[in-house]
């Protein structure tokens, strides 16, 4: 039964390093049992936020709670959280087994209890048979598993992971994404997962917090963040988006900078500078004038066709602006090539209006 109290609560947390504001007045509640991703470009303050929760940094201002307990000034060894470090930080002078047992030994758990718990943790990450190896005798993926076991064996209330898959190659990373997600469901522990890879965040998380410049810009489910980005940065950072600059010129209408007016529902006052976001896969390509009635449409000319294997990206220019249209690569249909006159259309509800 998940607790009603948030697993992690950040209340107006700010962290400064000299002049650098690494984390800027962040408010965030992470629910018990949640797989939460902190997503943002390098240097946006993700790691610092994670280290604040771990107790490896202390907030300059603000309050930090873990399951309701104020922990802002407690040292890391007195917090019920464990960390999987970015470079794993396995103790090189200890075997895999000794690494995993370290936390329990430090907490003076009895020998009789340590042994089965270490064995279970090693089994949980499928590392049986590797117990006696030292970290330098393990591959990157294996070190990753030992680091996970070393943290999970302590049954922390919250597990913090700092880009744990960053050092793995693509195939292994994708396999580990699924495995990590399954593992989190199995153990039911709250995971706070730091990544700069939006695909990874979308694929794994229950909710995502998007950060930039130390600020938390938007918190939501992957669907919410993808379909209704809160601002231009989020729209641009998550997935691929057409960002059409313009100005609100009436109720539910935006005039783009090239003079074309399109329907775009928003509650922004007329006169506001905005960008209309449209996902390439939401846009459809038709022969000239062939758009369905209820769609918003613009006429243009195909400027460039990019072949992706499973899909094609058509760059369509209309009055000095352009829209990328993604279409699945299916057999049949009229081949479209650069220079063709076309109409691009989309459901009015598939655009989102964002401000800077």
């Amino acid at each position: 039964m998940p607790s009603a109290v948030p697993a992690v609560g950040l209340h107006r947390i700010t962290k400064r390093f000299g002049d650098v504001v690494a984390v800027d007045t962040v408010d965030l509640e992470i629910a018990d049992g949640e797989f939460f991703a902190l997503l943002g470009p390098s240097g946006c303050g993700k790691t610092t936020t994670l280290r604040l929760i771990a107790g490896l940094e202390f907030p300059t201002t603000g309050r930090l709670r873990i399951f309701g307990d104020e922990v802002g000034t407690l040292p890391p060894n007195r917090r019920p959280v464990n960390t999987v470090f970015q470079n794993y930080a396995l103790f090189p002078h200890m075997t895999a087994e000794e690494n995993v047992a370290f936390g329990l030994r430090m907490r003076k758990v009895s020998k009789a209890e340590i042994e089965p718990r270490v064995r279970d943790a090693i089994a949980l990450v499928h590392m049986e048979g590797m117990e006696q190896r030292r970290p330098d005798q393990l591959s990157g993926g294996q070190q990753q598993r030992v680091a996970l076991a070393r943290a999970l064996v302590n049954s922390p209330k919250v597990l913090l992971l700092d880009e744990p898959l960053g050092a793995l190659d693509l195939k292994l990373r994708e396999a580990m994404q699924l495995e990590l997600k399954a593992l989190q469901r199995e153990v039911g522990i709250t995971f706070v997962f730091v990544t700069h890879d939006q695909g990874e965040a979308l694929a794994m998380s229950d909710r995502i917090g998007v950060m930039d410049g130390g600020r938390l810009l938007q918190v939501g489910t992957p669907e919410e963040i993808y379909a209704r980005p809160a601002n231009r940065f989020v729209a641009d950072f998550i997935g691929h988006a057409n960002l059409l600059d313009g100005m609100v010129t009436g109720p539910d209408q935006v005039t783009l900078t090239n003079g074309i007016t399109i329907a775009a529902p928003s509650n922004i006052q007329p006169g506001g500078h905005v960008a209309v976001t449209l996902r390439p896969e939401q846009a459809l390509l038709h022969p000239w004038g062939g758009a369905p009635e209820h769609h918003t449409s613009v006429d243009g000319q195909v400027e460039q066709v990019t072949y992706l294997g499973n899909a094609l990206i058509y760059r369509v220019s209309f009055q000095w602006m352009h829209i990328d249209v993604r279409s699945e690569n299916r057999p049949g249909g009229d081949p479209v090539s650069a220079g063709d006159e076309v109409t691009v259309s989309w459901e009015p509800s598939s655009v989102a209006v964002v401000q800077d």
Partner: protein
Amino acid sequence: MTLTAPPLPTGPGPGGAGTGLPEVTPEFERAAARADSRRGFLMSLPAYVYLVLFFTIPFGIVVVYSLATRNTIGGTDLAGWNLDSYRRLAEPIVRDILFRSVWIAMLTTLICLVVAYPFSYFIATRTPTIRNILLVFVMIPFWTNFLVRNYAWRVILGSDGPFAAVTEALGVGRQEILFTHSAVILGLVYGYLPFMVLPLYAAIERIDGSLIEAGRDLYASGAQTFWRVLLPLSMPGVLAGSILVFVPSLGAYVTPQILGGGKSTMLGSYIVVQFLTARNWPLGASLSFVLMTVMLTATLIYFRAGGRKL
């Protein structure tokens, strides 16, 4: 000195006639390997010559003299080798000096370790600029002659010196430690501290800081993290520093002579007395032999440990 290149085989290479590349036959490889090892030997020849001339031969002479006999007029008879001088090492007066030397060298090493560790840790965890400034500070004493620095300590520790004034001001009375074991140890610690700081710094600097954080994250207190993570990982530095301090401390001559008051506090002074005053060369030689054996053993341990990954 001429270096001969391996003979280039003639004839068509594996790429067919006309490529102009020599064929890599087993004979060619063997010739290349021979030339390689010959070059290596020639390049290290000066070092071998030096070692034989200034170490192996003198060491052999010391061994020979240690087996000789002192005659009644203070000369040395090389005829009739015996182990008498080694038996004398067990006599209380010699044995005491031997033990005291080892004890003083060990204490010096321990004090250096305890003083240098936190300091080295501090240096290793600074930003690179501050790190370099601090390392220069560590090495500044080397710019002044060792003898001069020891005489400076003699002034500091002397009866009218600042040390006594400070202890008096602190309310523990005028402490005059000059010509005591404490003064010798103080002088040795002062003299050899950099030999402890530098390897410790190098070892600690190599340790990934996130390992310390991982220790704290896994419920270890600061002290537990030190004993379980930091110290084991800096062991190569601890070992190197300890040997670099212990070996010269054990054989120290200048410092015990100047700060210990020439009372044969340590082995070095006693050996000098045997050669110059008592004219007992066999005893002096046997003591030198023991001292050198201890040092060589320590050095071997050092290189063995250095070659192994801890």
